[in-house]
């Protein structure tokens, strides 16, 4: 046993910590990003259904979805099962990674469980073939290849993209006989979703009131607290993890939540676009991404967030009312939506936009507020917040805010 466990990580010494604190205080980051700027997210789909690699800077996470037939849980005889499994073993410098009960992988696992399973994002009933006898067991293996901070976002994006990308074989159950069709007999079917959650991570420091988005490992280790928020495309909070020692005030958390909701929405748009592009490539019969190395090193089929969404950003800036643009994007995505989760998606898409509309004005105001001094922005927001919160968020959160 080494006494110096996880010492190869940055951010464990005093100079590093105080330097990061100082940098945050002066509103600077070591890689030149702004506090609300994230690293580019890159997606690569493998040749298998449901295999995807997500990289954010040096952080790289691979997710693979598999399925098998099995008996259902006794308590829920008419629902399929979903397992989320996180492996940190690929990161060489984490000595603790060999310990299965270590804090980090448990935390990551529980975050994914709450985001995807507890929020019931996947329609498990559709995975039931014969009640009490045969259901599909969906297994998501999240493999961390490299860790440079913000594993939460990387793995939640990877999980979401892999689940959305995944297709399962069609199956019939007749006279006690189970028949699973091969791909050449019947087309594979995508999973059905109730909603699509993604997480966003913020780091908060004692020296500054301004939380920073998408921390690197150095920033994460030097942070006093880390807030992870998961939202779905309807701006509903799916999970919230806040730990650490910083006394964070309610306006800060609410500001994080608002920005996170907007970012989750655009991340989901990005995943959908990426899936559409992958679909297009597959329909042309091009499956040249092969093997693990090809998947990790692949540059040709890498789909970058900044590239895909950058065009959209420019378009949004030109005409002031962004409602039309939102609809525009939605319509451009509909071909994918139809091929993908069939009826669920169809119902989801229009609801998405209508729900988004009242929020649009808020999100447009947001950047202005964050530029203003934090205390001022906070006050301003608490007055106006009640209206949009009510319709989208659970009562408990509303209560909590007033309480504070």
């Amino acid at each position, binding site marked *: 046993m*080494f*006494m*110096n466990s996880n*010492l*190869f990580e*940055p951010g*464990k*010494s*005093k*100079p*590093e*910590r*105080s*330097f990061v604190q*100082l*940098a945050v205080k*002066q509103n*600077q980051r*070591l890689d*030149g990003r702004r506090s609300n700027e994230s690293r580019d997210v890159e997606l690569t789909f493998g040749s298998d259904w449901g295999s995807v690699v997500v990289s954010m800077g040096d952080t790289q996470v691979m997710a693979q979805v598999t399925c098998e037939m099995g008996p259902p849980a006794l308590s829920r005889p008419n629902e399929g099962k979903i397992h989320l499994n996180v492996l940190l073993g690929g990161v060489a410098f984490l000595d603790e990674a060999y310990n299965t009960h270590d804090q980090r992988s448990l935390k990551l696992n529980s975050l994914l469980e709450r985001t995807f399973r507890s929020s019931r994002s996947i329609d498990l009933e559709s995975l039931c073939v014969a009640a009490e006898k045969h259901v599909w067991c969906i297994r998501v293996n999240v493999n961390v290849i490299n860790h440079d901070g913000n594993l939460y976002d990387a793995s939640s994006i990877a999980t979401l993209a892999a689940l959305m990308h995944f297709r399962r074989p069609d199956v019939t159950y007749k006279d006690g006989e189970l028949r699973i069709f091969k791909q050449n007999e019947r087309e594979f079917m995508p999973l059905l979703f109730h909603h699509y959650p993604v997480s966003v991570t913020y780091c908060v420091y004692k020296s500054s009131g301004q939380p920073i988005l998408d921390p690197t490992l150095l920033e994460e280790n030097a942070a006093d607290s880390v807030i992870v928020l998961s939202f779905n495309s309807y701006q509903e909070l799916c999970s919230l993890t806040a730990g650490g020692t910083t006394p964070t005030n309610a306006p800060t958390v609410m500001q994080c939540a608002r920005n996170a909701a907007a970012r989750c929405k655009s991340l989901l748009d990005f995943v959908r676009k990426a899936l559409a592009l992958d679909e297009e490539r597959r329909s042309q019969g091009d499956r040249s991404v092969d093997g693990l190395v090809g998947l990790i090193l692949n540059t040709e089929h890498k789909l970058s967030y900044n590239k895909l969404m950058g065009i959209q950003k420019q378009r949004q800036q030109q005409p002031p009312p962004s409602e039309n643009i939102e609809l525009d994007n939605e319509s451009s995505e509909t071909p994918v939506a139809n091929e993908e989760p069939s009826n669920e998606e169809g119902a989801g898409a229009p609801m998405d936009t209508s729900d988004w509309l009242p929020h649009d004005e808020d999100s447009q105001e947001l950047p202005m507020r964050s530029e203003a001094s934090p205390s001022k922005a906070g006050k301003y927001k608490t007055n106006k917040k009640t209206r949009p919160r009510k319709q989208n968020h659970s009562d408990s959160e509303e209560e909590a805010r007033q309480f504070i």
Partner: protein
Amino acid sequence: MSATNTIVMPGERIAAIEELAKSKRVILGPGLRRLDDTVVASKAGPLRHKEPGTFWVDNYQRRYIPARGDLILGIVRAKSGDMYRVDIGAADTASISYLAFEAATKKNRPDLIPGDLIYARVLNASADIEPELVCVNSVGKRGKLGVLTEGFFFKCSLNLGRMLLRENCPVLAALTREMPYEIAVGVNGRIWVKAHSLKETVALANAISALEQSGCAEIDKICGNLGDFLQT
């Protein structure tokens, strides 16, 4: 120093050195080993040669192997008895005595807490016992050793650390032309830098990290436009 283009792999027998050893005295550096009458490489990398007869393998490595007399940067991990445990990036933690600081006595102990960064010298290093550090020289003065406060600290490969430390290194000279700064480089691949402002310190750290993957020959070229890195 001449860089030959031979790349050697661990276990590879190097006949050229054996030939030379017949006529004159040869010194085998790190990465080379003598087995009876043969010379065998124990690390992978380009074979280096320095006149008259010194050979070594310049391999890329991040894990430090302690050697007596090395100047290193370590992070204090814990206090234990009359020792501090210090992480130096090696397989084992090193220890440093309370009394190994300037003007320290049993009554007057140095005030170090876990997380502190110290610049120290390796007093003894052997494969079987943990390395021991000191922060004073032979006459009890601290010189430049001791606790490093403020500034920024980062890790790099051992090669980069060694390269910065070699005599008349062009990198540090090129950086000096751009701005005044303080630097402490440990041969264990850890670098501490401090400049006037935070922005300058970040730029300096980025400029040095950018040299990570470049070889000795390229460095001279890169140093010409180090100013570009400093702008970012």
